[in-house]
Each structure stands twice: as C-alpha cells, then as structure tokens.
C-alpha cells in the first residue's frame, strides 16, 4: 500500500482542486467571472493522480480539465485566478483566456492550446528533446475522449512508437465531448486497443480512483523514463457539470450523473482513507477547510490584482 502521507496528500490536492472549482463555478454563475471557464468536477483524481506521479523535471501539457496538475506542480491559485480574471498577474498576463495559456516552464508546464489535440505533438517534441539529450525525463500529455478522434492523436502515437519517445498520454474519457456522447464519437471506446495497434503500450484505469491513477501514471512514467517507450493511460470518468460554465448539459441523462455521483473521486478517497484508518474524518474536514480558505485568499488576491495596461498590447508578440 502507498505511503499514508502520500495518500492524504492526494486527498488534500483533490480537495484544493474541488474548492477552486466550486468557487470558480459560483463566481462565474453569479457574474463575478470574466468570459467563460471549464468546470473540473469529476476530473480531480486524474489531474491530481497524474500530477503527483510526475517527477520534478518532467514536463506536462495539461488540457482544460487538469487544474489539479497545475496546482500540484506549483502554480498558485492566485496566478490561475489571475488568468481567469484577465489580470496582469496570471501566467498569460491577461492575454489568454480561462485555463488556456497557463504556461510556466520553470514549473514544467506548457500552456494549453485550444485546438484539439495540439498539445500532443508538443509533448512529443518535449519527449524527443529528452531522448535527444539523453535526459531521464518524461513528457506527460492529456487529452479528452473527444480529442482521440482527431488525427493528430494517431500521428503522435505512431511517431512516439517509432522513436520510443519518453511520452505518457493520459486519455481522460469523461463520456462526452461537449454534447456528443461517446457512441456518437467512436464505434469503439477501447482506446487502449488503438494505442496498441500503433505499438504503444496501453493501460486502462478507473479515473475516479486517485490511487489507481497514481499507480498507473507512476509505472508508465517510470517505464518511459527507463527507455521503455510511450505509454497510453485510458482513465475513465464522468464530466459532472456542463462542458463549460454556460452549458446546462441537459443532454446528459440524469441517471447517468446520479450513478457517477456515487463514485465521486473525493468521496471515494475520503471513504477509503477513513475506512482504512489512514485519516480521520476530522482531519479530512480540516484539509477541506484549509483548501477553502486557501482559495478565498487566492480569489481576494486575484481580484485585487491589476488588469494589464492597454498600452502593453503589442508587447511580447516576439521573443
């Protein structure tokens, strides 16, 4: 069994991710936001589990539901809220929107690009750089079920296999791409088989079980690090709120949500930690409270932060 401290940490990061999301959703619903944003609910175990399995020198290209990965890798909630609110203090300095453009190479994070799935080729390039330099580092990239129907997903798996690139691809299968259910996206939801057809090792994991995700990610990353070539992890979960903040997701059957709600990643982890006496409910409650207050503090700081100056419009187009 994994170290107790590590397991409690996983809960703590998930709690912070959830607290961020709850706060963000509430703010945006009440008009305190700017533009749109994407709820993270349902993806906490994946983004935190993978984020924690990565080494400090590994590099991630997270997607729009990987808030946990940003947080685990050290991007502060202040900065992320700063980005969401268009402030000069966000990693994009107000230039990019919501969870896009949260790049910070000093944290090993490449900012998200909207065009699906452009993050994958980028991650392959990162991995190939490590291979080229003989550095024991791994690139970890994230993609939705919807992203796997875009051609670049296959182009990248194929090239990664040819070159045995140290690349781990995490597929966050949350049953929907916007309003489109899995069965309208693909005839076969066995994405592991698609990876294997390219010669990429594939493994499937319960995306709501943070420990399972962590273990799958850790093993995959270590394999890639050791020169074993690329791995794809299919992590199944459910997108619990709409596609984006404006989306009521009326197209999702209520029963489906109710079923998945039973398997909420935070609840699952909490129950397990308590059952296995790794943590008391009180200790976990106190983590939740700490997370909530951390987020309050971040929002306050972000809301107090300045907007960028219009005069800076053309700065930074070129390096």
């Amino acid at each position, binding site marked *: 069994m994994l170290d107790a401290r590590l397991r409690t940490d996983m809960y703590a990061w998930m709690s912070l991710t959830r607290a961020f999301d709850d706060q963000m959703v509430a703010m945006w619903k009440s008009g305190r936001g*700017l*533009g*749109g944003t994407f709820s993270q609910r349902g993806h906490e175990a994946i983004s935190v589990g993978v984020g924690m399995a990565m080494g400090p020198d590994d590099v991630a290209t997270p997607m729009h539901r990987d808030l946990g990965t940003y947080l685990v890798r050290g991007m502060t909630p202040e900065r992320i809220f700063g980005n969401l609110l*268009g*402030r*000069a203090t966000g990693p*994009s*300095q*107000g*230039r*990019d*929107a*919501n969870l*896009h*453009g949260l790049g910070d190479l000093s944290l090993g994070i490449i900012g998200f*690009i*909207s*065009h*699906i799935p452009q993050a994958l080729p980028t991650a392959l390039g990162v991995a190939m750089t490590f291979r080229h330099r003989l550095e024991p580092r791994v690139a970890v990239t994230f993609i939705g079920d*919807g*992203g796997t*129907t*875009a*051609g670049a997903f296959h182009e990248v798996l194929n090239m990664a296999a040819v070159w045995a690139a140290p690349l781990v691809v995490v597929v966050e299968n949350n049953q929907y*791409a*916007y*309003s*489109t259910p899995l069965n*309208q*996206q*693909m005839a076969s939801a066995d994405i592991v088989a698609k990876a294997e057809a390219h010669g990429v090792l594939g493994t499937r994991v319960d995306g709501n079980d943070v420990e399972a995700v962590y273990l799958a990610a850790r093993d995959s990353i270590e394999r890639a690090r050791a020169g074993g070539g690329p791995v794809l992890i299919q992590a199944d979960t459910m997108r619990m709120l709409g596609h984006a903040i404006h989306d009521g997701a*009326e*197209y999702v059957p209520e029963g489906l949500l109710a079923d998945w709600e039973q398997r909420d990643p935070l609840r699952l982890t909490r129950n397990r930690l308590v059952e296995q006496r790794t943590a008391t409910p009180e200790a976990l409650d106190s983590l939740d409270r700490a997370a909530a207050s951390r987020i309050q503090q971040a929002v306050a700081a972000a809301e107090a932060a300045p*907007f*960028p*100056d*219009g*005069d*800076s*419009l*053309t700065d930074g*187009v070129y390096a």
Partner: protein
Amino acid sequence: MTGNNFGFTDAPASSGREITYLEAIAESIAHEMERDPNVLVLGEDVGGDFGGAFKVTKGLAARFGDDRVLNTPIAELSFTGMATGMALMGLRPIVEMQFADFISTAFDSIVQFAASTHYRWGGRVPWVVRAPSDGGIRSGPYHSQNPEAWFVHTPGLKVVAPATPADAKGLLAAAVRDDNPVIYFEAKPLYRSIRGHVPDGEHVVPLGEASIRRTGADLTIITYGSMVHESMAAAGALESDGIGATVVDLRTLKPLDTDTILDAAAATGKVIVVHAANRLAGVGAEVAALIAEHAFESLDGPVVRLGGADTPVPFSPPLEDAYRPNAARIESAARRLAEW
C-alpha cells in the same frame, strides 16, 4: 433595426419581422433545407436537441431528421473533406465550425481540395462552411479570430461576411445555392445584439454585391461584418459635425465588388478601410491596394486602414479594447482624413 441600432435597415419594415442576426441565420438554414432535400448540416454538436455551441441549428434535427443534421466527432479536417465528397455527389452540405478559429484545422481540405477541384477537373463543390468569427466579447485568442484573409487569398473560394440580419439570411441562401465552396463568416458579437427587419420566406442576396449603407460627400468608409455598425456610428457622429461619410458594406469578400469600391472611392476621394481582423495583410490591404491602383487619379488623401493589431486577439478587456477598431477610432481617423 433596434438594439445596437444605427438607424439603417436592409428591408422595408413592412416586408418582414424584426429578428436577430442569429435567428436570421437559423431561419435561412431551415428555409434552404425545406426547399432542397440535398441541403444538410454537419459539425460538432449541431445535432439532437442541443443545436450547436451557439444554438444556431437548434430544432433542425427534430424537424428534418438526424440524417440531415449530423453530429460529427472532433475531426474538422476530415468532416470538411467529407462535405467536399458529399458536394461532389450533389449534396449541399452546410458545415458548422464550432468557432471560426478552428477552421485552420480544416485548412488543407478547404484551400487545397475544395477550392481547386473545379478548376482542376470540373468537379463542383457546392458547400458552405459557417464560421462564427470575431471578438470583442472577452473570448481570448482562440475564440475571437477573423481569419477571412487566408481564404480571400486562396483561388477558388467565395467568402461572405454579413453585417445585418437580412443579409445574414439572404447571403446564406445565396451561398447554399452557389455551386462553389463558400465560407460564411458570422460575426458572433452580432448574434443577439442586432435585430433587424428580415423578409419572410424566400430572400436571396446575390454574392459579389456590396451595399452602400449611407452616402456622404466627404469620405468613404469601406468595411464589413461587425465594423459596419461601428462605422455607421462613426458616420453618424461625423455628420453632426458636417462631415459626410459614405459607408460601403462589402458583404462579399470574394469575389470583391470592385466596381462599387472604386466608384465610392472616386466619389469622395478619401477612403478609410476598416475591419476587425488583423490589419496587416488583411482584406483591407487588398481593398486599399485596389484603390491605390485603379482610383488613384481620384484620390485626395491617403488610403487609411484600421484593423486589429498584429497580435493574437487578447483576452483581458484593456488589451482587447486596445486591439480592436471601434466607432471612436474610426471617427477620429475620419476627422484627420477629412482635414487632409
């Protein structure tokens, strides 16, 4: 026209109802599907009860069947190419890009194959790609683009950009009926902010014809899309100071209505070209260059261009506001030009 209304109408008030720009698009699609069984709609999330990211296609699946309102996976390159195959077989697909920004994902299939097929061997490609474009609504670099210049430069395409509900309906009808690939740029900021009189039933605005939105003797503002409204506002403000401005709404960007452009330029001798897209090597450059070559003798001042900055479209309000032309900037450019 009410709402963000600058006092101009497309259609006599008697001939239709006041509806939004978005409603006009939706109505036109439905009308074309009703009229011609070969017309169908495809794209991400367009089907079912959902009806697309902007709900433009809402209700169509119930009315015309899932077979004519096809939800696609995320694969713009290939579903646009699929539309080309359908068009070659005689269907008339209307392809929705979820945002115009994603049209670059389908680029090869548009600029290399659809655009060139008739020239290369005679195959007809009567499709329409609908591209919800433009910014000003805090959507950031990936949901605010105006990429029309790429396509105006590409041989074999037609490109339209309606500014009013009536034109939105009429140009879409013309685009669907045209035997060539047409890219139809919708201005998202106009979707619900603009209402106008739109004729019931059949309404077709021919491709390739600009519209003179107002006339004035001192200078001409040539524009399209959302900037038509900013230009009309600017023209109104100028008028109160005795500066008369003609406003030309290009409506079709390819083929350009060069006659109207050159006549309007010659009539006033002073021209401002305005669009929301990046000014640098934008469509306005072509318009300005046309004038500099073919209306040179009539020019009484420099051909002024206003457009987006040469940056990605930034998200934060102070940046996006600095990025984008608006009525005030058009007005002040016009005052400077008028004094030339």
